[in-house]
């Protein structure tokens, strides 16, 4: 296997001698396993010089994982091949990838906000004078040159934190181009841009194409696919399902490829009598996040929330629970208008909220299981003369541990040592102990193994059977379809519809979610 070092690659590129190959990038039989999850399963991907290659798929289909492998952030599982311009290479770090000419523009921008645009672009490569001091004037000149070339109207001297999101995106792109990269990876670059800014971005992409660069373009938006892409590869459940020329497929073809899976998981949804309305939201809005969301949630009902990442589903949940209270609209609990301005008020009203990101807003990672389970009920008393009733709480926690089958030697294990599924169960136990009447579950099965997933699904059904009203946000369509009585779909901060279980199918939901 011929390998060449980054510096050799640099020389080859500068000399303009390109090893004869039709493809800039050829990835074959690549897999990536995370603890408990196979994120990518034997996928392939090819990128031609001067082409824009779109990657599509649902959330969790494996697009971002593949791109992170290409950008050197993740190391793939052993086996598989990775060819850059016909040469087999092995990336060890993002820096390595950059030196080979592969640059990634992340969805969450990686700029140093308090530094200037020029400093950000030339970081680690600052022009130095004889005394090894940074030549700011030269740096500014080089930045101007780069910006003129890309037609980006930004002053190189402003601090990045003073730029709009769109302009930061432009700076990221310019930075990637400044590395003389041949492969540019863009992960949903338009998610925060206005229409005009998207136009400008596409203009830049077209000129990069004309220069012979290859662009990998991850997107959820069909319209963009047909406007900018030459090829499209579709992924589903970590597998590659097909590559097509963008001009030869239709929107429906793509949707079918994205969702057309056999449902392998069993969802133990049981029919339970649906009772009275317990929670109803009327014209709930949070400025800048979502508008006019209205729905009713009944006893024993599971209301699914579908939509793409960033469509505002989690924001609705946070507003209902008082984490970020809604700026307008009303919440009714049992028909009575209830002000929920803090999570404490939500708890008092009988709500429970399993948050989306268990590490960020759920777990106390360094604390024991028991300490993680007990936090929400401690508000309700459980003290005698000021002392926490440890024995009583421990008994409750043990009971939860047994019924949820949390796999741990004892309750005094720090949560950081548990697997994702067990961590999730600990958090579910925290809320079950409060005996909630309304339970909001945000991505209850994200990043956990199949076995734990099935257990959590079964539990949700049991809870609904006991009369708990469940609101379940999930980015996995089969999960939403399999578990919900009704499905509320959101797109860019607005409700685009509520679909009944009997009318719901993947295509219908995707249509509402992707518009």
């Amino acid at each position, binding site marked *: 296997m011929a390998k060449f070092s980054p510096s050799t690659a640099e020389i080859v590129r500068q000399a303009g001698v390109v090893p004869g190959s039709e493809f800039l990038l050829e990835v074959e039989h690549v897999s990536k396993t995370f603890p408990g999850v196979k994120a990518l399963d034997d996928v392939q991907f090819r990128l031609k010089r001067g082409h824009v290659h779109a990657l599509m798929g649902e959330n969790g289909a494996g697009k971002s994982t593949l791109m992170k492998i290409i950008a050197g952030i993740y190391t793939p599982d052993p086996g598989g091949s990775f060819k850059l311009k016909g040469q087999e290479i092995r990336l060890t770090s993002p820096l390595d990838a950059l030196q080979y000419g592969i640059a990634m523009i992340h969805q969450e921008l990686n700029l140093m906000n308090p530094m200037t645009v020029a400093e950000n672009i030339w970081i680690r490569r600052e022009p130095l004078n004889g005394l090894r001091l940074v030549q700011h004037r030269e740096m500014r000149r080089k930045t101007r040159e780069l910006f003129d070339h890309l037609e980006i109207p930004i002053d190189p001297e402003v601090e990045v934190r003073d730029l709009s999101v769109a302009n930061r995106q432009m700076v990221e792109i310019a930075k990637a181009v400044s590395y003389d990269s041949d492969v540019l990876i863009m992960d949903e670059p338009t998610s925060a841009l206005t229409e005009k800014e998207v136009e400008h971005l596409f203009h830049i992409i077209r000129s990069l194409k004309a220069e012979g660069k290859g662009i990998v373009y991850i997107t959820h938006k069909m319209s963009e696919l047909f406007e900018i892409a030459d090829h499209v590869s579709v992924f589903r459940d970590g597998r590659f399902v097909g590559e097509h020329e963008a001009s030869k497929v239709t929107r429906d073809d793509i949707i079918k490829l994205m969702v057309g899976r056999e449902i392998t998981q069993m969802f133990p949804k049981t029919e339970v009598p649906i009772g009275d309305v317990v929670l109803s939201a009327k014209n709930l809005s949070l400025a800048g996040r979502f508008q006019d969301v209205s729905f009713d949630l009944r006893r024993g009902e599971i209301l699914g929330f579908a939509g793409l990442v960033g469509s505002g589903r989690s924001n609705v949940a946070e507003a209902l*629970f008082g*984490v970020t209270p809604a700026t307008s609209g009303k919440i009714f609990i049992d028909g009575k208008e209830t002000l929920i301005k*803090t*999570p*404490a008020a*939500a*708890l008092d009203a009988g709500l429970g*909220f399993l*948050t989306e990101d268990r590490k*960020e*807003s*759920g*777990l*106390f*990672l*360094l*604390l024991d299981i028991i*300490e993680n389970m*007990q*936090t*929400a009920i*401690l*508000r309700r008393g459980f*003290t005698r003369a*000021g*002392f*926490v009733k*440890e*024995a009583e709480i*421990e*008994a409750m926690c*043990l009971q939860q*541990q*047994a019924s949820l*089958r*949390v*796999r*741990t*030697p*004892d*309750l*005094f294990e*720090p949560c*950081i*040592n548990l*697997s994702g599924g067990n961590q999730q169960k600990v958090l579910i136990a*925290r809320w079950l102990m409060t005996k909630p009447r309304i339970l909001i579950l945000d991505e209850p099965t994200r990043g956990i193994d199949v076995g734990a997933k099935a257990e959590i699904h079964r539990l949700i059904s049991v809870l609904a059977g006991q009369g708990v009203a469940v609101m379940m946000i999930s980015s996995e369509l089969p999960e939403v379809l399999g578990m919900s009585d009704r499905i509320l779909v959101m797109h860019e901060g607005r409700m685009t519809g509520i679909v009944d279980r009997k009318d719901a199918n993947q295509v219908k939901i995707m249509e509402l979610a992707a518009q």
Partner: protein
Amino acid sequence: MATDTSTSTAAATREPVLRLHRRMPPEVSILVVMIGMMLLFEALGWIFEGQTFIFNVLRLKIMILQESEIGIIAVGVTMCIITGGIDLSSGSLVGMTAMVAASLAQVSGYSHAIYPGLTGLNPVIPVAAGLLCGLLVGMINGGLIAYTKIPPFIATLGMMVSARGVADWYTNGEPIGNLEDSFAAIGSGWWPVIIFLFVAFVFHIALRYTRYGKFTYAIGANPLAARVSGINVERHLVVVYMFAGLLSGVAGVVHTARAISGQAGVGMGFELDAIAAAVIGGTSLMGGVGRMTGTVIGAVILGILTSGFTFLNVDAHYQEIIKGAVIIAAVITDQYRQRRRRSA
């Protein structure tokens, strides 16, 4: 995974046994260090000085007395650090409360008294004034931190400067003497030590067995998760900093009573020793981790170092150098231990 499953059923049916025996508490290692240090000084004592280090009651008493004020502060500082914060104002607050308490504890009929009309008061009054003053400053610290969201480091740094200013301004830097014997009694004999151990015990219990403690750890471990669990994070932080302020007040009163005079400059640098005691005792500056027993041991270790070196006639400069190294070594070993625990 297979082993996990096999133990799960056993865990589910097992009765909750006494927790103490489950896992070796983290203080054990630091306790070993403390004992090792004492033995080292004992050995060095016989080699260089020809006498015992530990078995000298007077030395032991001085050793504990000089650390008890720092220990009292460290109890409050430990709680601030567990919430993920810090309290830099405690040393200055000792000075400030010392002045306030002293000014109300002067002997009756003293013609040059600060408040000539308020002399010969019951000692309860100066004590209460000192504590109240500490409580108030702590409330301001907590309020600033919780509601303006400025970093605790900055809020208490500002307070450190201002409180020292108040202490100096109070009498234009003049010391306050001629204090009542009944007030001075608080600082005599073993009282400072008893007070230190008493507050440490009270807050040890509070941290381990009350809701106050559980919320303190939760906020330090993950403030966002604490909020989502319905904890009023802001209000709780104010309470924690109020306790810290109160304890600085206690230290200020104890110091004034022990010195039988109020001086604006007292407590200089105490905040750093208190932080050191907490950190040596295993409290993590990242928040969520720490125990009062560790802090007490940490304070004792600092005391052993100081009196041990004095006993061996080591130059004061060397003492400081070594003390600094010990603090750093303590944190390094602690981090190493935590990392091992996490990957276990």
